[in-house]
């Protein structure tokens, strides 16, 4: 399936969970938060919540600012 991860088009196997998306793309899991299509997915749901085709996934963390 094709999804967007942090704005980048990405091809992944269909039916992956949020946890599997992070693992597959080698993204950090500490101090990050994930939103799928503009809704935060709590860390406690990462291993159950699946990412559908055409989803937009945002993975954010704290950087310098303010």
């Amino acid at each position, binding site marked *: 399936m094709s999804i967007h991860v*942090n704005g980048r088009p990405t091809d992944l196997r269909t039916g992956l969970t949020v946890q599997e998306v992070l693992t597959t793309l080698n993204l950090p899991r500490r101090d*990050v938060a994930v939103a799928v299509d503009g809704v*935060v997915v*709590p860390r406690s749901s990462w291993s159950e919540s699946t990412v559908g085709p055409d989803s937009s996934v945002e*993975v954010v*963390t704290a*950087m310098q*600012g*303010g």
Partner: protein
Amino acid sequence: MTTEPLQIADTKLRSRLFLGTGGISSLAALAACIAATGTELVTVAMRRVSAGSSPLQVIRDAGAHVLPNTAGCFTAAEAVLTAQLAREALGTTRIKLEVVADEHTLLPDTVELLDAAERLVDDGFDVFPYTTDDLVTARRLADLGCVAVMPLGAPIGSGLGICNPRAIEAICDAVDVPVVLDAGVGTASDAALAMELGCDAVLAATAITRADDPARMAAAIGAAVEAGWLARHAGRIPRRTTALASSPLDGLVGS
């Protein structure tokens, strides 16, 4: 002699200087600035993960609290989502709420700001809103349940100081929550003035992080915050239009 601690929501802060991290050249420089001031509240921005280094570990190692912000948001909806992501990522309900009108002025969009503040307070956040120096807006933010208000002295990054001291003083007199002067500080005297006007704390970022010697400027602004607080609470003399001799007038030579 030092300042009294500042209580905001559940957090007691010994230092009344909050540090912004935008523009800092390195994590080592950030650590030096925190050490130079003893600041206990340090801002971070929420951004997509990348190869860049996060300041989180430095902040934690220094024993400071993290204050995530919603910098870069132009609508209430963007700010609310960013705040929710910050809470999820960092495990804090503190949020420095910034909703700006455009990239050129970076001035707060008051309509979007009030909307976002209300939604975030309802969602259980401790909201620190970056706002204009308008008294009525500050009062509305306090009435909504924000834990502090953060009026600007001048536009972000401008270093112009406090363009309208009377407006800042009026906000300090009118709201019951802590007032944190945010944006506009260029050097130590600006921070001292903010405290003398009645502010409870000062947030400085650019003035420190982009100074030639950030740690030295951090120390200077930290000292100015303390000096301003002490002066405010020492009871300054009234201003007079004529001189008042400081030496005794009795026993003058030739009298």
